């Protein structure tokens, strides 16, 4: 794929706010004058299933989906999902992992086990790994659900996006009563020390 396209893969569990995160990043990228495409998943998978949304921006973007091995950044809202989509990360790409773990059905029912120390295992193979308790940070900002925006802050900074553009996108995309919490979450993610 074109070298000057930036590819962000956002993975998590249905209900964790992957859609909002992708829309905020996309809006901010658009404000910087890029061509942008976003692929979202609606419907069945949202019911607690594994979900992925994808943001691509650059001078001209064709495909809305990212090829395996070509994501510049993976934002994982959940550890198991980080592991599941690891094959999408490009060489020297950045993976940001929220330390939250949510047991999938096969684990809850005892048919399978949740692999231990996933984030360390990933960090051992991917040099550019950031592990953060985004859910905990979001809780401090006022709502655990803002973990997605904490992650957006960390990734937006890594990609040298404009923090003002991200804040602006949050103001247009988030219901008015949740704006303050989400802006705090953006700051907390932006200032996060690995």
């Amino acid at each position, binding site marked *: 794929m074109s070298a000057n396209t930036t590819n962000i893969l956002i993975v998590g569990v249905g209900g964790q706010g992957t859609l909002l995160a992708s829309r905020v990043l996309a809006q901010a990228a658009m404000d910087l004058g890029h061509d942008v495409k976003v692929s979202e998943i609606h419907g069945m*998978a949202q019911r607690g299933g594994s979900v992925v949304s994808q943001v691509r921006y650059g001078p001209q973007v064709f495909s*809305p989906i990212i090829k395996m091995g070509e994501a510049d950044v993976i934002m994982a809202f959940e550890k198991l999902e980080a592991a599941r989509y690891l094959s999408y990360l490009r060489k020297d790409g950045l993976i940001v992992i929220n330390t939250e773990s949510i047991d999938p059905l096969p684990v809850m029912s005892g048919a399978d086990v949740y692999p231990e120390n996933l984030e360390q295992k990933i960090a051992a193979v991917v040099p550019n790994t950031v592990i953060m308790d985004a859910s905990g940070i979001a809780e401090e900002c006022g709502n655990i659900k803002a973990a997605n925006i904490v992650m957006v802050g960390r990734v937006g900074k890594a990609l040298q996006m404009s923090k003002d553009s991200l804040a602006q996108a949050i103001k247009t995309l988030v219901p008015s009563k949740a704006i303050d919490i989400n802006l705090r979450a953006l700051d907390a993610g932006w200032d996060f020390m690995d």
Partner: protein
Amino acid sequence: MKKLMIGNQAIARGAYEAGVTVAAAYPGTPSTEIVDGFSKFEGVYAEWSPNEKVALEVGFGASLGGARTLVTMKHVGVNVAADPLYTMSYTGVTGGVVLVSADDPGMHSSQNEQDNRGYGKFAKLLVIEPSDSQEALDFTREAFDLSEEFDSPVMLRVTTRLCHSQSLVEEGVKQDVPLKEYKKNEAKYVMLPGFARLRHIEVEKRMDRLRDYVETSPLNRVEWGDRSIGIITSGIPYQYIKEVLPEASVLKLATVNPLPEKLIRDFAAKVEKLYVIEELEPVIEEQLKAWGLDVTGKDLLPIIGEYSPELLEQVLVGRTAEPPYTLEGSIPGRPPLLCPGCPHRAVFHILNKKKLTVAGDIGCYTLGALKPLGAMDSTLCMGASIGTAMGMEKARGIEGSRKTVAVIGDSTFIHSGITPLIDVVYNQGNTTVIILDNSTTAMTGHQDHPGTGVTIQKAEAPKLDLEAMVKAIGIRRVTAVDPINIKELEKVIMEELAFEGPSVIIAVRPCALIDSNKYPPLVVEKDKCKACKACIKIGCTGMYWVEEEKLAYINPDLCIGCGLCVEICKFDAVVERAVM
């Protein structure tokens, strides 16, 4: 200024700009956001119809009445609407009609993978396929003009990846299209055989005119590049080709039915090797082969599933993506599941416990088929559960029917469950039907329906009384229960199964995601828990098991306090947090 829009929003905008004033749809992923979005424009009428057939008939009437009309549905919805569709091709239109068919290659959220371009061929319609949100807007607008010019409904065929991908869109100016005058014209609109025979001649004439039109349609485009490879493609696969083979010559088709023969032959003659890249069925490829063209397509690429850039790269370039980083060991799957507090869980818990045969239907509750609930034996299409249970009884006799129930959601029952229930009454079946009334169309994102008493525009509407309607059909035994009260639910199910004759049980409790009643989260009292795991076996994501402690726990962030585990626990170990 450009805006980011998903394909569906762009279609809604395109229809609005084209002066559409009436839109009708039944929800269905990936089409739902189109009419939902359209309903928010000023000065338009939009409705959730009870099913797709009704939606298209409302569309027919609105067109006859002179308005430009948008009708949308998912691919299988077109099966339901196929009857009016085939004959609307004969009557043609007064106000332009665009039918959006949203196909789902890869079955992200569907029960089959049918390719609705086939409808275009058989119903003799112009079918147009966009490749991004801008085209979705522009082509929708254009489709209304074409519909009126060719006196025919036009099908806009889109796929999940277009519907749910955002890209930049430049909005246009809204056209004001005056309502067309109504003129009675029975020869055109009353399809008696004598009139229909004449209309069929018009249909064939129209196809000739359409075949001419597509040759020079500005919607199709040739992008010349390296002539050693020529690709004919349309829709989303076009975007993948531009990534994977940026140098190739491409004939990008928007008009996928009828196909422009001269344009295609001309393109084919100027390239060395010709490929057709299309998801699902070889619709374009077969036509090219019928014309005697030498073309490669499905011999290399699958008929099954959604395409991706890496798949096309592997097949066309011979390069296999090697992931730079991998982990050892397997990763547990994460299938979708019923939400914590979902009222459907209680019903499937009882059906599982009683080891009943369950004729299922389509909705969130189809997830009741998955372990640990595993209480569903069949799911075919919307509304099929009741006829299925009736047919099983007719095959296996009344003993079988004493162990069989049909399970159907409220929206699905209104969509297409009423006529099979009439069959049960009329042909004297013993079927026991459980209507799962969660006051919404949950699966597709909580749309209202005739049973919720609210319209698409959130206005109040007469609320369909399911109980009264079922009685009016002739079902004498109708019982409403709150499914969380599982003892009562079990008792009612067993009574109705034993009863000789048809009966309906309505399990009434709002979907946990829209329930305005707020219950406090629950907690397990450690010293009372006997580690029997009964609560774990209901598969609620709000509960988890800690093996080291041999204890069940409740996640307070997820638990919505529905109380099903309270009912399940024989040791009264689950209590309200406040009690602790």
